[in-house]
């Protein structure tokens, strides 16, 4: 039997104005187990807390009920008081007689009666409280960053600079991501390569960073502080440690007609290739789909020219097991397919391109060495039409476009238009826009410069149809401000394609039990207060995998994610929330209902030996809750048919006791 002390707070007149606190203390003193009951003006004050501490000692209290303001206000306070008095902090229950009683009722007898009932419910619950101790788990002091774009690179650098080990897993042969493909960056127009490649080198040379390029995460087990991850290293048929990146093999490879993915298929690369000059690691990779040696054993030229002896046609995919304390997702984005938007004739004309293709076309390292040439015939174009919001803000058809604003297009389109006009003043540039969205530092100024100083023709309206005919693109569009339909003969049309999360994100989310929204962007734990954390403990979000972002935002979020990781890795042990689910093995059926509803993947199963009544031993499948992962929602307790699953702090019998006390 508990020895319970009841402490009724006046909260000045906040409670005492509508509730007869002395009557409440008196009434509760007769409840079973209550050995002490009193009232005080401000229970949360130092004097009030001292009174509680003294009472615990004097009356040998084992449980405390405080009738006061909302537990959301002072539960933590009174739990600390209990701890100071030598009690387990979870032996405290609060009866909310202010927000949910004195403040919402006007009549003293009614308020008093209700306060007594709420107090009785709290007393009934405390009878069934048990001391709870948060679980502890060790922290592996290494972080995993999935994705080696600017988001992943920045996160990894920040974590590494703080002194922790970091691994980057990048599925492409080089890190760098989308930013490596860009030409200039808005709103300052500094060149992407100039600011990115030094970071790529920094991260590659950092003593705390390892890079797994051409690799993917294939399995994730474990939980915050203790993830077990399997990384699949694709065979690149080149020994990374031996390859010097000299490029002799690339030059000699006879199979030169493979569409170059780095230039979005606008030119070709050999079967053995280094994606771009500043690739990190600067190591060649053989594309097995196109290599004659790997396909039919005929060739072997690259091995012959490689003085380092790095070529290895027998290389196999390799699996690496590693332990991590935290995982950062930085899987980035891709432009959506333009296949469903053929009113723009993207599939019919080479001169209709996406903005990312345009980046390559204006990049000095791109397929035209930075010269603006019409892809179909290499001629100098005279009229360019940019179309914004292609597939963004599109609710008509889910298979086609995306409901959200892709956020970056207004600015990069202004950048493209401005750069064209800057280099080629003879080129007419039209930009069709629905709205121009430029909320960012120096963003609107940038866009206005494109209009006012560079003479880009911004037209409110959009393009309805592009008809390629006799070497020109006949563009039919609306000009809403002048209420006209325009017919423009253009040389090139550039589509600001909506962006979407990388395809690898969905299976990764399943592996991590991290939640996603309907667009496959990772969901943050709280949209305002925890924007870089996934609801799954120990999983953090960096960059466009969480939503469309430009580079400055991505970098700041990358830093924020890193600081969260650093905060986690700095701990030697993790203290859990003790109000977590736990399963009574003797009653568990092993039916998986609980695991089906658990949003955190906190429940696993193991076969356990049980002694049967007939003295035989039987193996039974039983649920195990990982207290470090469980967040204590209690969903499993209702899914469990046998009642084996219960929730500490909110046990079935505790809640039923409250129900009974209220309904008495």
């Amino acid at each position, binding site marked *: 039997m508990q020895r319970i002390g009841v402490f009724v707070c006046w909260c000045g007149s906040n409670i005492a104005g509508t509730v007869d606190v002395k009557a409440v203390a008196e009434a509760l003193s007769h409840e079973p187990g209550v050995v002490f009951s009193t009232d005080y003006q401000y229970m949360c004050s130092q004097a009030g807390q001292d009174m509680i501490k003294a009472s615990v000692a004097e009356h040998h209290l084992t449980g405390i009920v405080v009738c006061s303001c909302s537990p959301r206000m002072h539960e933590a306070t009174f739990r600390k008081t209990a701890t100071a008095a030598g009690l387990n902090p979870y032996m405290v229950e609060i009866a909310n007689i202010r927000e949910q009683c004195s403040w919402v009722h006007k009549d003293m007898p009614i308020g008093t009666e209700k306060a007594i009932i709420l107090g009785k419910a709290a007393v009934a619950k405390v009878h069934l409280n048990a001391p709870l101790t948060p679980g502890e788990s060790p922290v592996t002091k290494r972080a995993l960053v999935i994705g080696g774009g600017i988001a992943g690179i920045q996160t990894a650098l920040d974590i590494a600079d703080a002194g922790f080990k970091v691994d980057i897993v990048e599925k492409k042969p080089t890190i760098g991501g989308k930013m490596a493909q860009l030409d200039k960056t808005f709103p300052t127009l500094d060149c992407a390569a100039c600011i990115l490649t030094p970071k790529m080198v920094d991260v590659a040379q950092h003593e705390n960073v390892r890079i797994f390029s051409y690799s993917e995460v294939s399995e994730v087990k474990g939980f915050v502080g203790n993830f077990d991850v399997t990384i699949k290293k694709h065979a690149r048929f080149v020994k990374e440690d031996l390859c010097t990146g000299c490029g002799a093999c690339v030059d000699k490879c006879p199979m030169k007609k493979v569409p170059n993915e780095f230039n979005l298929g606008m030119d070709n690369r050999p079967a053995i290739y280094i994606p771009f000059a500043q690739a990190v690691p600067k190591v060649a990779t053989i594309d097995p789909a196109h290599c004659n040696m790997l396909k039919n054993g005929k060739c072997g030229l690259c091995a012959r020219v490689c003085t380092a002896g790095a070529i290895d046609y027998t290389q196999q995919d390799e699996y690496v097991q590693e332990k991590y304390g935290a995982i950062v997702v930085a899987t980035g984005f891709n432009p959506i397919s333009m296949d469903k938007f053929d009113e723009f004739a993207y599939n019919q004309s080479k001169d209709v391109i996406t903005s990312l293709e345009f980046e390559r076309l204006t990049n000095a390292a791109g397929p035209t060495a930075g010269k603006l040439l019409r892809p179909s015939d290499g001629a100098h174009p005279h009229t360019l039409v940019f179309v914004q*919001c292609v597939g963004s803000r*599109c609710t*008509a058809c889910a298979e086609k476009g995306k409901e959200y604003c892709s956020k970056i297009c207004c600015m990069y389109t202004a950048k493209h238009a401005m750069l064209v006009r800057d280099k080629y003043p003879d080129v007419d540039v039209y930009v069709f826009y*629905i709205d121009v969205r430029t909320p960012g530092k120096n963003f609107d100024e940038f866009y206005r410069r494109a209009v006012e100083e560079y003479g880009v023709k911004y037209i*409110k*309206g959009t393009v*309805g149809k592009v008809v390629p005919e006799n070497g020109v693109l006949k563009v039919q569009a*609306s000009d809403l401000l002048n209420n006209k339909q325009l017919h423009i003969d253009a040389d090139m049309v550039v589509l600001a394609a909506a962006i979407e999360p990388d395809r690898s994100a969905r299976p990764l989310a399943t592996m991590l039990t991290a939640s996603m929204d309907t667009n496959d962007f990772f969901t943050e734990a709280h949209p305002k207060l925890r924007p870089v954390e996934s609801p799954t403990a120990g999983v953090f979000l960096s960059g466009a995998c969480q939503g469309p972002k430009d580079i400055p935002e991505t970098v700041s979020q990358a830093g924020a994610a890193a600081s969260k990781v650093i905060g986690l890795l700095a701990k030697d042990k993790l203290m859990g929330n003790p109000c977590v689910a736990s399963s009574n093995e003797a009653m568990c059926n092993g039916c998986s209902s609980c695991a089906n509803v658990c949003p955190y993947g906190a429940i696993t199963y193991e076969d356990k030996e049980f002694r049967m009544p007939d003295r035989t031993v039987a193996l039974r499948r039983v649920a195990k809750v990982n207290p470090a992962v469980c967040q204590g929602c209690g969903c499993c307790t209702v899914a469990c048919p046998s009642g084996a699953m219960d929730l500490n702090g909110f046990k079935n019998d505790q809640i039923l006791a409250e129900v009974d006390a209220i309904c008495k």
Partner: protein
Amino acid sequence: MNNAQLRDEVIRISGVNPSKCMGCGKCSATCPAYDEMEFHPHQFVSMIKNGDLAPLLKSDSLFRCLSCFACVERCPRGVEPAKLIEAVRLQVIREKGANHLKPESVPAMVDEDLPGQLLVTAFRKYAK
């Protein structure tokens, strides 16, 4: 019917919610009959949304829509302007004596090859 009632009626029978329009102008960009119209598709949507129907009811633009559904197909917001235009046109031709196409004027317009489909369609669109 006053303007507001008319607007509600048009919205009801077309099943289209003009408030979904974000004003991108795709309908007017794509419309093959644009130059024939006094009011253009995006204006239709906006005028109906605002209950500003009187000018529309009087306009020949109602009879210039080809019902080719390009605007419906390409609208990124699923607004379906052609259906709105048709609903307004029905408000007009359902009035007694308001048929746009009169049988007596047909012979002058047809030639030998003209398919029956054309006449049927025109009458269905223009007359009650």
